[in-house]
């Protein structure tokens, strides 16, 4: 998924369930999912913890690992292009199929391995992204450059994600409503791998084109639906990503209030 430069508001906690259904040639279709806790530590730093799992139909359901993600906004003000630095530590096993991003030579056949075998492989990775995002006339355009280093002495892998999105209405309604057009955001996304340090490029890589619709309710709930289609023979033919999240504003204050109360 392509990130933009908007971070979580400071002190807010977002809890999300997100899943990916994928078709699989040469194996069984799968349903991968994560539970995410996203916290706005400051206005310039958002930190997230993910717990991943997946079900491969006709095979098994497995926990596949965790990821800790951090996003930093290095510049104080808004610019034409806004950079955000992304740093993630990933400790997953080979059965992880969440496909949050595509990198290196990730191809469809990698995901056909039975869970019992795939989960024996441990993956400890550091993932870096440079997110460049712009807002222009209500549109958001974003470009993510991805570089991943497996800590077990494997070469750097690269990937990309490009996205454009826009709310369906630019003005807010004069009354509270759930179905007003300004609460819906539609977008398109292109993402894929760029090989590794020794074979950089498009050879033996997978790529996807997707659309997305998000519904942000004023109560803090968000629903997302993102169908994607594989663009070459190395890609899954179809991925359906969807998620539901709830934002809790003032979570940080609530927690610090609890501890203050105990000291008094």
């Amino acid at each position: 998924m392509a990130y933009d430069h908007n971070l979580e508001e400071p002190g807010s906690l977002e809890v999300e369930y997100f899943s990916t259904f994928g078709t699989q040639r040469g194996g069984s279709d799968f349903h991968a999912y994560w539970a995410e806790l996203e916290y706005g530590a400051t206005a310039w730093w958002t930190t997230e913890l993910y717990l991943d799992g997946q079900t491969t139909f006709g095979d098994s359901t497995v926990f596949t690992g965790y990821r800790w993600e951090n996003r930093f906004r290095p510049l104080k003000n808004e610019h034409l292009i806004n950079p955000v630095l992304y740093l993630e530590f990933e400790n997953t096993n080979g059965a992880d199929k969440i496909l949050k991003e595509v990198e290196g030579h990730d191809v469809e056949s990698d995901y056909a391995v039975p869970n019992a075998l795939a989960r024996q492989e441990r993956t400890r990775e550091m993932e870096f992204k440079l997110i460049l995002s712009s807002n222009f006339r209500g549109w958001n355009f974003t470009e993510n450059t991805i570089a991943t280093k497996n800590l077990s002495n494997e070469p750097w892998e690269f990937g990309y994600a490009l996205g454009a999105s826009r709310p369906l209405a630019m003005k807010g309604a004069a009354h509270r409503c759930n179905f007003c057009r300004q609460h819906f955001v539609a977008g398109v996304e292109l993402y894929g791998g760029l090989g590794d340090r020794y074979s950089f490029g498009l050879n033996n890589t997978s790529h996807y084109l997707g659309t997305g619709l998000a519904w942000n309710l004023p109560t803090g709930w968000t629903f997302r639906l993102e169908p994607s289609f594989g663009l070459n023979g190395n890609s899954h033919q179809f991925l359906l990503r969807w998620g539901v999240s709830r934002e809790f504003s003032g979570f940080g204050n609530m927690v610090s209030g609890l501890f203050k109360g105990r000291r008094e």
Partner: protein
Amino acid sequence: MKLNQFVIACLLLFGGIVAAATSQESPKGPESNSVYAELKKAPEKYRSKTNPLANDADAVAAGGVLFEEHCEECHGKEGIGGKKAPSLRAEEVQTSPPGAIFWILSNGVVRKKMPVWSKLPEPERWQLVSYLKSLGTATAESNSPGKP
């Protein structure tokens, strides 16, 4: 590069980013101690902007809805100020040009916990400005951290 060196390099990078950002958070003088000082930093290009929705009959009501959704949590009901953020009914805000308030909304004050609201489309930010300007001056609560 060996694994240990790589991990140490990552930790140093992480520490550097946090340290740099934290150092920018410290106020640098008496002027910057006031949370309202940021309004004066708005570039002339923005200060001279007029609110394109100034004559929109719905702008204040729509801004009120947006304020309730995004701002009230920190700035308190009707912008009177809260434990986390200053009053928006203070004279410094109410006498500021609409363009300066728009600039603050668009850029945030990230070193002082005010988020960037550029994710809201421009018309929605102007609706918020219309609403804030309609509130008028009122005394901030004594516990407001924004009271200069």
